[in-house]
């Protein structure tokens, strides 16, 4: 097992270097003068230009610049924003919990609905229930979520007035951010109604972000279940006279879930891509909206640092999923 983990780690190192090269090249590939792009100043004298060039180390050979960049990264220096002058890492750490909270809620919703829906469709294969569930799943899978979000806002916020349009919590409540997770912080604060407010702000973004993972998980669970239900050991369990509930819930589902766990792990990238759109629609102050805003503000230092940090998060999560997968499915360790 340790060998397996170290093997995975060894593969990560070239990927990390590759990702850092892409992030490093990003600013240098942009059209325009790198000095102006990096300093954010529009008009400058030639002397000032040369001064900044030296300050930023742009007058040195490109491989030394890259080496410096890599050393900075390993020291936790991901650059700082041109607009706010704040360190990119600080901004990231402040905004990341909002994205994690939204993503966790979305994946919990997707698993809680997707797995039972998939099992039900597989067990009732070919019936109208199967067709309805899988039809709905395909619609969810095909959904342009930025439009889906707007529709939900029109109906639930505009027409019914049940949910707020954007943000994380009502402005009426103010309390210190202990964990960065609004649901937990609002509970800790003890303010009446704060938790409920946080929940109402969370509902629509969660549904929107969960839509595609939910559809993928339901479809994947169904096909994995169908494969397992045809196996000999399921027939054996049935012929032993075990209750259908036990056969499906214990014998079949446990084995069917192995590929589903991988699918869930693969949804992390999907969630972060979805977070870009969902956070933009609901003005959710997470890293997705932060990246989009930075692209539009031409705050390229933030885009560069954000790219690096988000890729690092995805790589680490994928590593964890791989290792977990190695635990539940010993066959792939070799």
């Amino acid at each position, binding site marked *: 097992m340790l060998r397996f983990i170290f093997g995975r780690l060894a*593969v990560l190192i*070239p*990927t990390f270097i*590759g*990702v850092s090269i*892409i992030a490093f090249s*990003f600013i240098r*590939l*942009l*059209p325009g003068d790198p000095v102006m792009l990096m300093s954010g100043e529009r008009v400058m004298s030639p002397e000032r230009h040369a001064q900044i060039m030296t300050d930023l180390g742009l007058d040195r050979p490109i491989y030394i610049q890259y080496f410096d960049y890599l050393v900075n990264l390993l020291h936790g220096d991901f650059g700082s924003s041109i607009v706010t002058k704040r360190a990119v890492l600080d901004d990231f750490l402040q905004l990341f919990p909002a994205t994690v909270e939204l993503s966790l809620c979305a994946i919990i919703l997707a698993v809680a609905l997707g797995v039972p829906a998939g099992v039900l469709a597989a067990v009732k294969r070919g019936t109208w229930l199967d067709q309805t569930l899988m*039809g709905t799943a*395909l*619609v969810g*899978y*095909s*959904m*342009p979520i*930025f*439009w*889906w979000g*707007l*529709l939900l*806002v*029109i109906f639930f916020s*505009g027409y019914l007035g049940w949910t707020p349009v954007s943000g994380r919590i009502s402005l009426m409540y103010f309390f210190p951010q202990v964990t960065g997770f609004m649901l937990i912080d609002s509970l800790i604060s003890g303010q009446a109604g704060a938790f409920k407010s946080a929940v109402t702000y969370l509902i629509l973004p969660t549904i929107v972000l969960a839509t595609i993972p939910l559809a993928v998980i339901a479809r994947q669970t169904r096909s994995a279940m*169908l494969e397992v239900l*045809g196996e000999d050991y399921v027939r054996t369990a049935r012929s032993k006279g075990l209750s259908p509930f036990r056969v499906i819930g214990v014998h079949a589902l446990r084995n069917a879930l192995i590929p589903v766990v991988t699918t869930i792990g693969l949804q992390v*990238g*999907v969630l*972060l*891509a979805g977070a*870009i*759109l969902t956070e*933009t629609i609901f003005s959710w102050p997470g890293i997705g909206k932060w*990246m*989009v805003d930075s*692209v*539009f503000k031409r705050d390229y230092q933030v*885009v560069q640092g954000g*790219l690096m940090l*988000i*890729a690092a998060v*995805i*790589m680490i999560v994928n590593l964890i999923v791989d290792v977990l997968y190695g635990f539940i499915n010993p066959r792939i360790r070799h």
Partner: protein
Amino acid sequence: MAVVDTNSVPPSGTAPPSGLSEFWFYFSRNKGAVIGLVIFVIILVLAVFAPLVTPHSPSIQNRDVLLLPPALSAGGQWTYLLGTDAVGRDILSRLIYGARFSLFIGLVVVTLSVISGVLVGLVAGYFRGRTDTIIMRVMDIILAFPSLLLALVLVAVLGPGLVNAMIAISLVNLPHFVRLTRAAVMSERTKDYVIASRVAGAGTLRLMFLTILPNCLAPLIVQATLAFSAAILDAAALGFLGMGAQPPTPEWGTMLAEAREFIQRAWWVVTFPGLAILITVLAINLMGDGLRDALDPKLKRS
């Protein structure tokens, strides 16, 4: 290959059915796939003949009918079936022209990523060794970014616009085709027919393209369908974020971005472009499911 009426199913009798009729037999058993095909053909015909079927020009602004509701709701006019947008352009006409963009985007992206992905994947799977390792590491790097974020940043580098959006989406799609081709090639290259062909004196290129590649096509066709619909969604998302096609192009995502500020006042300007995206993507995905059933021997007759 014998000429067989493609409608004469099921394949019975002594002679083996032709590939095409067998394919159609399995494809048509999936009702959803047939519905998807019909919808797709309708959208395709509308897109091709857009200038003939649209009631209005997609770009002419009629100042008399700003934000006119659809014909069936109160205050609507039958000449503007789906209503008008904030500057008085006919939404139905814009949607039909938008189909041209979406289908074109899907076609270009799939062509670009299939051709380059299959080439790279073939090389990786056929030659293995160091070439393979380097190629797969590069693909891992692309996959380490969320696809939409990478596409967004690429467009920021290249400059916003439809062409650059298509290039960016093709690039983020590439790893899927490379991985799929490589896996298929690796499982085929040690099979007897390939070895026999090599013993018979076939050269490397012939082995790669004529002997191995045709036997790897089934999963690639299914993936290409999925990539087609994903490309339409991604391009619309980029348009929505303001980084894809630029106004006044009647691209569906761009139309949604323009309509966003009217969501409280005029539901139709928001609803119809998204519905067009959903229907198109759904039709293609339905066909993709049917293709998978028809082409994937593992799932056949199950």
